[in-house]
Every structure is written in C-alpha cells, then in structure tokens.
C-alpha cells in the first residue's frame, strides 16, 4: 500500500467532514474541532496509554472499538463518537470506577472540581447498580506538602507519567496486579521518605482527590493541569 503523496487526510467525525494531518490521533482532530470525546487517562503533554477506555469510538466498517487517544486518522475514515452503544459502555466503565474504591464525593477534597465527578454528570450516570467493593485502602500523609488518598485513585497513571516524563524523577509507579494495583512512590516507601522532588506536578494532573495539597482546606482544591502543555511548549522553545 502506498501512502498518499500529501500529508493531509480527510475524514468524517459525527457527520462532519474534517481534515487532519497524517499521524494525528482521532482525539486530537476531534478536539481541534470542538467535538467532545470523554477521557480520563489522557492528558495533553503526556504520553497516551489507552487505559481508561472512555474515548473508544466506532469506526464505520469495523466492529472493533478504537481508543481515540492513540488511534491515528486514515483517509476516508468515518468516526462516530457518541452512539448509544458507546454511551452505554462509558456509563458502565464509570460505574465500575465508582464501585471499585471509595468515591464518596461529599467528603472528598475535590468535590466540585473532580474530573470523575464531572464525567459521571456529563455521561448521565445517576446511580450505581454494581455492588460496592469498599476496599480498605491507606491514606499516606507522610509528605510535608501533599497527601495521597488511595481510596480516590482511579489508576489513570497520570502521576506516574508526569513524574517520569516531565519531571524526570520517576518516583511514582504502579504496584500489584489487577484489582490490587496501586500507585506507589519509589519501592513502596512512604511518600515523605521517598526521593520525591516536591515539584507537585502529580497533584496538579490528578483528575480526582487522590493526590492533594495539604495547605488547602475543605473543597478549596482546584487543580491547574493547564501548566503542562505550556511547560512543554516553553521547553521546546528553548
């Protein structure tokens, strides 16, 4: 198969004819054109892992659902981002997240500015039918500035990626397998005793109340993940 001599692809997303550069992901093209595809693990400025599965989209002619964050565009592709089938799957995935750990919004530091909470509202998740698992998970407040509450963690691994890819410290990583997976600092040291550089990037990119700043009280915890694309831009400019 030979590639077209030019680098522009045309495709259709939700009935709109759009153009894109070769190599762009479906998600990038959709966002450029104000088409909303829900994501949780994706974050502009970090590598994509395709783990949350919320950005799955339907491609005409294929029965397989593709993750928009990593699937690249191809000529003549017809993408649907919001079909009934996708909405059902998205609600189920969110429901799975709410039942997996202890997401009690009313007593969470991120109440009101939590990506998981907003996502549930956007996707119309009104109640959880699945049995709550209610695991016993620790809260590590050993760090002088930050706290990690594993009850709120959705394992999006943004903290792992920002620490490794942007800060270059690789303090965060994932421990355990399957349902017992957990983010850890160093080799499961207390965060306060770890090699953490105290930059706080992980806290800013955390979509929920799993990582938060100790100096703020109550639900006064807005996060500012927008620093990341800017930081990357400045680094490139240098």
């Amino acid at each position, binding site marked *: 198969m030979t590639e077209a001599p030019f680098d522009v692809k045309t495709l259709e997303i939700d009935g709109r004819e759009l153009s894109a550069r070769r190599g762009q992901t479906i998600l990038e093209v959709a966002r450029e054109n104000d088409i909303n595809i829900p994501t949780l693990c994706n974050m502009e400025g970090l590598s994509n892992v395709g783990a949350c599965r919320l950005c799955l989209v339907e491609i005409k002619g294929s029965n397989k659902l593709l993750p928009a964050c990593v699937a690249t565009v191809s000529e003549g592709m017809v993408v649907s981002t919001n079909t009934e089938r996708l909405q059902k799957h998205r609600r189920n995935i969110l429901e799975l997240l709410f039942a997996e750990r202890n997401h009690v919004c009313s007593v969470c530091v991120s109440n009101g500015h939590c990506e998981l909470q907003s996502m549930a509202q956007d996707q119309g998740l009104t109640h959880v039918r699945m049995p709550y698992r209610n695991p016993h998970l620790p809260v590590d407040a050993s760090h002088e500035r930050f706290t990690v509450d594993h009850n709120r963690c959705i394992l999006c691994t943004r903290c792992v990626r920002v620490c490794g890819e942007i800060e270059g410290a690789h303090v965060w990583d994932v421990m355990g397998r*399957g349902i017992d997976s957990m983010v850890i600092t160093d080799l499961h040291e207390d965060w306060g005793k770890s090699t953490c550089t105290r930059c706080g990037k992980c806290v800013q990119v955390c979509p929920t109340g799993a990582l938060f700043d100790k100096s703020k009280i109550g639900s006064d915890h807005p996060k500012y993940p927008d620093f990341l694309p800017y930081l990357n831009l400045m680094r490139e400019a240098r």
Partner: protein
Amino acid sequence: MTIEELEQIAKTVQLENSRYDYEVNVCMDLACASQGAGLLRDALSRLAEASGKKVLIRKTGCMGPCSSGPLVRVDPDDTLYAKVKETNAEAIINSLGEKPVAELQCDLNEHFDKQVRVVLENAGHIDPEKIDDYISRDGYKALLTALTEMTPNGVVHRITESGLRGRGGGGYPTGLKWGTVAKASGDVKYVVCNGDEGDPGAFMDRSVMEGDPHRVIEGMAIAAYAVGASKGFIYVRAEYPVAVARLTTALREARRRGLLGSGICNTTFNFDIEIRLGAGAFVCGEETALLASIEGRRGTPKPRPPYPAVSGLWGKPTLINNVETYANIAPIVRNGGKWFFNMGSERSKGTKVFALTGRIKNTGLIEVPLGIKLWEIIDVIGGGVPGGHKLKAIQTGGPSGGCIPADMMSLGVSYDALMAAGSIMGSGGMIVMDDTSCMVNVARFFVEFCMTESCGKCIPCRAGTAQMYTLLTRICDGTGTMDDLELLIELCDTVRETSLCGLGQTAPNPVLSTLKYFKNEYLEHIMHKRCPAGVCSMAGAPAAQTAAAEVLA
C-alpha cells in the same frame, strides 16, 4: 556445518545405535517423572548392564498418554508398556529377545491411530539433551536447506503456501505475519518465541520445549533468516524450570555445532537466541505485554497498532510466534508447503497439539489433524468418560475460551468452527467435563482466573472481571437474583468490547458460552436456589428455601 556433515552426524548416531540390539525409551516428562520414571530408568540401566544384553536406555520427552505413565517403549518391536514401576524393570530387561511382558502392555492402538504427529514426531524417540539425536531424525536439515538453497522470500512463500496459522490461539496466518516483518524497514529486527503458556490445564508448549527443544530453535532460526533478524528471544515462564534447562543445553549444543552464532553454515547469516524468564504473569502471553517484559518493564499490554511487526522490541520490527508454530516450521520447509496444506480442514491446515485433561480416561498430550470431530477426540483417542458418568461439555481455549456442550460433539475442530460455537481454539487446552461439573462454577473459576491475572491497566478488565466474579459468586452462593444475571450479561458485553487486550476482551467468553448452552443451570441457581450438579454449596440461600428445593427435587 554443511548438509553432508549433518548426514555424517546422523550416520554416526545410527552406527552407534546399531551396536545395541534393543532400545528402551523411558518417558521422562514431568507426569512420568513424578511417578518415579527416574528410579525406573536407573533400575533399567543397572539391570541391563548386569544382564549382558546390548541395551540402549534412553530418556525421552513426553510420549503422550500421561495418565498411563510412567511409559516405556521398547524398540525395535515398538512395544509400549504403561504404568511401569521400578519393580517391573527386571521383567522388562528379561523379556528382551523374548515375549513382551503381557501384564504391562497396554492397548493404546486406538489412542495413537487417530493421531498424526508433525510437531510431536520426535516425542518419545530422542533424548532432548542430545543434539545428535535430533540431527539423526532430519534435524537442522530444514535450516541448512533454507540457508543454502532458498531465498528469504522463498521461505516466506513456502510458509504462506502451507496455510499454517498461529498456534498460540489467535490463528493469524503465519506466512502473512512473516511477510509483514520481512517487508518492515529497519536494519535490526527480532524474532521472539512465546513460551509463556499459562492456560489452566495446558501443557503443549512445555512438552515441546522439554521433549524436543531443537525443533523450536530450528524454527526460530529459519524465521530469522526469512525476516532478516539476527537476534532471537525465547520467553519462557519461570514455572517451567525443566524446559529452561533443556533449552539452555540445546542452545549451547547448537552453538557448539555452529548452528547458531555468526556465519552459520558458512553463509553470511548470523543468529543467536537468548532465553528470558517470565515471572508468572498470564498476561505476558499477550504479545505487547510479553515484549514489555522482555525489555525489562512491567508486563502490561499496549494498544495496537502499532503492531509488533512494525514496532516491537525496542521499537524494532519483531516477529512473535508461539512455540508450537515454530515447531511446525522445520517439517514444512523440509516437506514443502503443499504437504502441510493437504492436512487438516478447509481453512485450518495441518495438525494441532491438544492437552487433553479432565474427566477422561486417557489424559495427556495428543496431536490430531485439524477438522477431526470432537467425538473422535473424546471417545476414541480419549477413551471416553470414566466411571459411568455422562459427558457434559468440553472447555477449549482456557480462560479465553468457552464450553462446548455434549450434543455438539460432531463439530470439526478448527479455528472457525470453534469460534462459531462461542469458544476458541486457543493454545490447545481441552478440559473434559462430566455431569459432576456445575457450569456456573466453571464460569466462576475462569472469571476468577482472569480477575487475578488482569494486569490492572484498563478499567473494564481490572474492575469488570472483579465485579463479574462477585456476581457469579452470589449466584453460586444462592443469593443471586435475576437483576444480578442481567447486570452480569451487560458487564460481559462491556468488558468484551472495551478491554485493552485479549485477556479482557475474551474474559467473558466462559460466562457467555455457558449462558448460551446451560442457561437453565444459571436459572436453577437463581430461581430455585439449587445447583443441579451438586457442586455449589448454596450457603447463602435461606435454609427453608434450600430445604424446599430439596424436597421438590
């Protein structure tokens, strides 16, 4: 090394063997070894020496019918003895040159007659730790033929022509995969052998690696020549220490003979293989997770594309095939693609090794031409269900597969037919279940397996399998409701369609296939709080209800 030299080695081995009047082959595969085959072999050696007869005692890989082990085969008469104990050694040695020991002889003719051995052609005939034994049975001839008489394209063409499909489970056409890697641009390419066999009840790859390791190495070397790779990795799970030891020995011997290394057989082709051990994660059998593990990272899958054929190990084009796929390569190169193409069914060519386990008389390793009917495997090769019980279902494909009910035994075994029946071919595990198995409990077992083996990366597999397990446990406990069943079905759909890798995508299969064929068992559990097979305890059901159900039953 040249073809002539190979033939010379083969001749030397034959000459060596002709000094003996009898060959006593002792199966030293794990099943036989665990029943005392080691002691038996020592006794045989000792007594043979004392008797003054010219007897060659040889330890071999798996002969097949493990349930009849320890197995001993005496050549040249091809007499097979089953369940041989150390104390029988004297009788066997004494019988040499006379009548065989009748009480040890077993009638497994039917068991073997239906089988066609390609991958297992050497099983039970060679000492896996002796490269010369392998060479004496046409070993490495295919590699030398490929290197000296064929172009890489010619090799790919021959594999394509054979119609061989990946034996790891997916059934992707092997020739197509090789062609893709061969065409991929890049100076550095890798060849990887997937020996991370992890399905419960499956031991095909272990037996091949332990019983005939050179066959895998030869297949990989041919593959490397065909795709232009100079480095290979065999990824074996650490739970297979014997396989690792035999492969290590085999690699050393192959290097010593100049069949691996630089300038193989006086050509410009360089190739060597390294063994990498898996740490026991089932998901590392998934190719992208396997590659991550070889690279030294956490074994979690990555979204595809890019496929490993384009960007695999350290971003280089990588060919990944299963142990059994590589084991098929040498015979195909030797005998031609047409020869292989003529075996098997319409769209599934060749033979397949199955690990037959469960409620069946002859458990063990079998190799059958694809297209064979299930009943032939169960009733003829397997010898039927023992103890007067009735066959209920056959589970194929491990935790990714499904259960095929007893009334579908006329189904021909092929990738497509099994898929259509709601199961998969998988890597070759075949678990036979009789009327003492509860299908809900079976589904729960496999979902539990997937739950504990999920890597935890994507949400549907990590949390979805855990929820499915909870719901199935409720049903098995007698506390399940119809709402639970409905939710379970919905979850199966989401986990299947949205999971990142094959593990999650296929994890609902055991549930879906048992629901398809045995839905009334689920309903019995839920509506009447009763387990038809009497397996589930129904501990959670209200006592009165259980008692009532018992009276009604």
